[in-house]
C-alpha cells in the first residue's frame, strides 16, 4: 500500500491529519491539471479548492479503494472542470457538427516534424491556452492525466469511437495555434 493509499484509508476513517497528507501529495498535480484545463489561473485555483472541498464533504466515500487513487482523483477533477466549462457555456458543441471535415489526409510529415522540432514546451503551453475548451480538455485528459479513450469518452460525454477524432482535431487546432495558419491541419499532402 502506497503512502497516498494509506492516507486515503485514514482520511476515510475520519483522520483529519490524513487530509493534509492527501492535499500535500495531490494538490499540486490537481492544480496543474486545472491550470491546463481551465482558461485562467484564478479558475484553476478555485477549481482545485472546490475539488478538494468535494472530497472533504463526502466525495471520497465514492472512491473504490481497489483502484488507483490518483486516476480516480483526475477523473473527479476532469468532471469538475468540464462542469465549470459547461456552466459557462463555453463548451463548443458546434465542433461536432462539422465532424465530417475531419481530414483523412496524409499531412506533410516533414513539415509536421519541423514544427515539433522548433517549438518549446512553453510555446506549446501558450498555444494550448488558445484552444477551444473541448480540444484543450481532450489533450489534457490524454497527455497529462494519461486517461484511456474510454475514460476520455466518459469525461467528455462523447462516444468512444469519436475520441480519436476529437484528439486529432485538437492536435490540428494546436498546430494551427503554433503556426498561426491552418496549413498542417487541412493542407497536407495526400
Amino acid at each position, binding site marked *: 500500500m502506497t503512502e497516498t493509499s494509506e492516507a486515503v484509508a485514514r482520511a476515510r476513517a475520519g483522520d483529519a491529519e490524513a487530509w493534509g497528507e492527501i492535499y500535500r501529495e495531490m494538490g499540486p498535480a490537481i492544480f496543474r491539471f486545472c491550470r491546463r484545463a481551465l482558461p485562467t489561473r484564478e479558475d484553476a485555483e478555485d477549481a482545485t479548492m472546490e475539488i*478538494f472541498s468535494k472530497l472533504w464533504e463526502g466525495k471520497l466515500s465514492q472512491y473504490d479503494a481497489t483502484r488507483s487513487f490518483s486516476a480516480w482523483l483526475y477523473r473527479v477533477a476532469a468532471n469538475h472542470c468540464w462542469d465549470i466549462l459547461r456552466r459557462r457555456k463555453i463548451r463548443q458543441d458546434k465542433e461536432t457538427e462539422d465532424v465530417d471535415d475531419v481530414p483523412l489526409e496524409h499531412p506533410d510529415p516533414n513539415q*509536421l516534424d519541423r514544427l515539433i522540432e522548433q517549438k518549446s514546451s512553453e510555446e506549446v503551453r501558450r498555444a494550448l491556452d488558445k484552444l477551444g475548451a473541448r480540444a484543450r480538455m481532450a489533450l489534457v485528459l490524454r497527455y497529462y492525466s494519461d486517461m484511456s479513450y474510454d475514460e476520455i469518452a466518459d469525461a467528455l460525454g462523447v462516444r468512444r469511437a469519436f475520441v480519436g477524432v476529437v484528439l486529432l482535431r485538437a492536435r490540428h487546432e494546436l498546430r494551427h495555434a503554433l503556426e498561426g495558419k491552418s496549413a498542417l491541419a487541412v493542407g497536407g499532402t495526400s
Partner: protein
Amino acid sequence: MSEPANPVSQQGPGGTMEHLDEMTCLLYAERQLDRARAQAVSAHAQDCASCRTLLRALERESRLLTRAMLEVDEPMPSRLAQFQERARQSFGWIWGLVLGLAATGVYALYTFIIEPWQVRLEQAGFGGTSLLSLFIFQGAFWKGWQSMVPFLEILAMLTLAGFAAVIFRRRLRRGSAMALVLAGLCAALALPAPATATEFHKGETYELAKDQTVKSDLFITGARARIDGTVEGDVFFFGQSIDISGHVKGDAIMFAQSVRVNGQIDGNIRSFANNLTITGTVTRNVLTFNEVLNLDSAGKIDGSLTSFAQSVGIDGRVARDLMLMVGETTISGDVQGEVRAKGRSMSIASSAQISGPVHFEGDNPASVSSGAKLGSPVQFTKMKHESQYMEGHYYVWRVIWTAAFILLGLVLFLLLPKFAAETVSAGERFGAPVGLGVLVFFGVPIAAIIACITVVGIPLGVLTLGLWMLCLFTAELIVGTVVGNWILGKSADTWGLIGRMAMGFVIVRIVYTPLARLHVIGLLVGLGIWMWGMGSIALAIYNRLQPGAAPSTMSGSMPPVSLPPQTTVGGIQPA
C-alpha cells in the same frame, strides 16, 4: 511498395502513391488499433518513408504535449496551501463564540418578544396554544385552509414538477424540460375539480338579499358587497367596501377600504381595512389592522378586541379584553375585561365603564373623565423616546443579533453550499444583481398581493411573500460574504466561504450601524444592501434555471463520421 491487408491507405495524387491517413496513424501511435490493423499499418510503414515519418512525428508530438503539460512552470499558489486546515483552525473559536451569542439571541427573542406576545394573545382570547397552531391550525387569520386544500395540492404538484425539471435538466434539453413542466401543469389542471364547500363571487358588486342563504363559505372579490342574508360558513372579502347587515355564522375575513358590520357575526372578525365600523354583534374576537376603528354604541363584541390602528373609538361593549397599539384611543363604552394600550393618547369619557385593570403606555397620562367607572386607576407608563443609540445595551443586542444572523448564514451555507457559492458569485457582478434586486424588492410583493387578490392564488402569494421575506433576511449575509471575498480573496471551500460571510457581515454591520442614524442615507444604504443581496439570490436562481448543454446531447447531435475501417473501439490493443 506492399499494400496493407486492409484498405487503410489513401490514394495519393495522380494515383502514384498510397499513404496512411493521419487518423489511422494517430490511432496506431496511440495503440488503439486491433492487432490485424496494427500489423497492416506496421507493414506499410516499413516500406513507406513518408508514413514512417508521419508516425514518428505524431509520437514526438505526443511526447512534446506530455512534457509541456507535466512541466512545473509555476509554483502552487499560496492561498491553496493547506487551505482546509487553515480555515478550520482559524474559525474554530469564532464559531464557539457565535453559537454562544446566537443561543443568547434565541433565548432573548423568546423571553422578550415571543412569550410576552403569547401571553397577550392569550389574554386577548386566542387561547393558550402556540403561535404556530394559532396561525395555522386554529385558522385565526385564515380559516379557509381546508377549502384551499385542492389549490395546495395543485401547487404541490407544480412544485414537484418544477423540482423534477431542475433535477433532470442536465439530461434534458430545454424543450424537454419545458415539456415536462407543461405536462405536469396539464395533468394538474386536468384533474377533476374536487367538490368544494365554497361559493365564489367575482364582479363589480355582490349582494346577498335578506331572504337568501349561503350554506357554505363565501368568497367575494369585487368593488362592493352587501350581505343582508345569511351565510352559514365564513365570509372572505377582497375589495373596496363591504356592508354586513345580515347574519354570518362563521368568521369574517376582510381586506377592504371600508368595512361596516351592522348585523351579527357568530365567529371572529379579521380585518385589514381603512375603516371598520361595528354597530352589530360579534360573538367571538376581533383582530384589526385599520386606520380608523369605531365600535358604535350599539356595537357589541362578546370576545376580545385587538387593534393596530391610527384611531380607535370604543362606544359599545367589549365583553373581554382590549389590546391596542393605537395612536389615539377614546373609550366611552363598556369594557368588561382588561385594557392594555400603547399609543400617543388615551381618553376615557365619563360614560365609560371598565371592569378590569387599565395599562397605558404613552406620551402623556390618559385623560380620564370624572364620571368614568374604572375597576382600578389607570396604570400609566411614560413612553421612552431617547435615542437608542445612546444606550449601551443597544450595542450589546446588536452583537447578539449579529451572531444570530451569522448562525442563520452558517446553517443556510451548510444546507446549500453550492447555491450559496453561486449566489455570492452572482453578487460580485454588482450591476446585474442590484438591477434585478430593485425588480425583486418591489415587484415580488406586488405580484404576491395581486395573486392573493385573485383568491385562487392565495397560497402562492403567501408562499411568495414568505420566500421574499427569507431573501430579505439573508440579503445582508450575501453582501457580507461578497465583502469578505473582496478582503480575503475568493474561497471555493464552504467553510472558507462561511468564514468570509461572518467577517464580511460583521464589517457591513459596523459600517451600517452609524449610517443608519442618518435617516435618508441610512435608508438608502439599507435599501441598497437589501436590493443587492436579493438581486444576487434572484440571479443565482435565474442562472440555475438556465439549462446548459447536457453531455449526452453531444454524442446525440454528432453526425456519423467516417472512421478508418476496423478501428478498435472496445479497448487498447497492442500494436
